[in-house]
């Protein structure tokens, strides 16, 4: 599988340079690729090796290997988000286990809520497409907020923060199939919720 990588160049941009096409602006934004690669390799070596033990604990807590896998990936993402400060912790494994337990109990406390239909205010005085677009984006934002945390985090890393699939796999220690599933679930759910909400709004228009 040879995927062409987006070549990331660290540049400075002036406001006048905002491109029409949203994609090319992605290149300027990320910290230098090779530096991030080095960090991911290091992270992968140090942290992902404790995965087996984390899985064992997660299975014991949740009784379910799918939930356990999701939990462990969430822990890895959390550790990655603080990877700059990890050296200060004398025992990363204890930290990881603590995060794991906290996430498990948090998940139980707040049952996953179904997305309630939100009425999105739409200004129909002017049939202006820019207003419509802003509303659409707001709907997406709400749906993203209601996704299961692992799905929304992975989608965000892939599409907003610009991580490659290989990088995400190295950080979470997940299989390609697991990553594909999470991306697919997130994307399909967004599409279905969006259609449901916009259909509801269309029905209730004055």
């Amino acid at each position: 599988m040879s995927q062409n990588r987006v070549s990331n160049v660290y540049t400075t941009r002036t406001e006048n340079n905002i491109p029409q096409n949203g994609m090319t602006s992605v290149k300027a934004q990320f910290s230098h690729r090779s530096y991030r690669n080095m960090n991911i390799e290091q992270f992968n070596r140090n942290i992902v090796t404790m995965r087996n033990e984390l899985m064992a604990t997660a299975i014991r807590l949740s009784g379910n290997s799918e939930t356990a896998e999701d939990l462990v990936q969430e822990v890895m993402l959390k550790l990655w988000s603080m990877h700059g400060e990890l050296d200060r912790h004398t025992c990363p494994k204890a930290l990881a286990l603590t995060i794991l337990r906290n996430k498990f109990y948090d998940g139980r406390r707040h049952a996953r809520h179904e997305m309630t239909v939100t009425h999105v205010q739409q200004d129909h005085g002017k049939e202006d497409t820019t207003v419509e677009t802003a509303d659409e984006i707001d709907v997406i934002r709400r749906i993203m907020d209601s996704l299961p945390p692992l799905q929304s985090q992975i989608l965000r890393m892939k599409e907003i923060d610009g991580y490659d699939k290989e990088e995400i796999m190295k950080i979470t220690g997940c299989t390609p199939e697991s990553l594909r599933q999470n991306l697919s679930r997130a994307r399909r759910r967004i599409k279905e919720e969006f259609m449901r909400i916009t259909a509801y709004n269309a029905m209730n228009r004055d």
Partner: protein
Amino acid sequence: MNKDRKYIENLIEKYLDGDTSNNEEKLLRRYFTNSGNDIPDEWKALRALFGYETVQRKNALRNTRTGAIRIYIRYAAVASAVILIAIPIMMHRNGTSGNYAVIDGKVCTDSRIVTSEAEKALMMVAIGEDETFEALGQIQ
């Protein structure tokens, strides 16, 4: 036109399956940026999603830039504070405080010698303690 639609439809299915490559996703985004409103309702969700992501990316870029600038300012402030403190210290140690004395025709900047010579010179013109109070007595 229909062929293009069919191709996009296939890409969208692939995208929803989580199977698209980076290049294929780039293609989809470009398509939706230029597509306008003449697209099937089913596709509007994707257009909205890509629009949302573009906004989020711009926000993330703004944050890293201002974050980087803040960090830079912090480092610059510390660096300049260190420099400002270091200069007088270095000057004091070298004794190059700008004071000098001419002894036997040679300029001498050693602060200890300069100071002691200065004191000696001052002593020669200084009035003694008693003289000061006597001077007071002369005021009517």
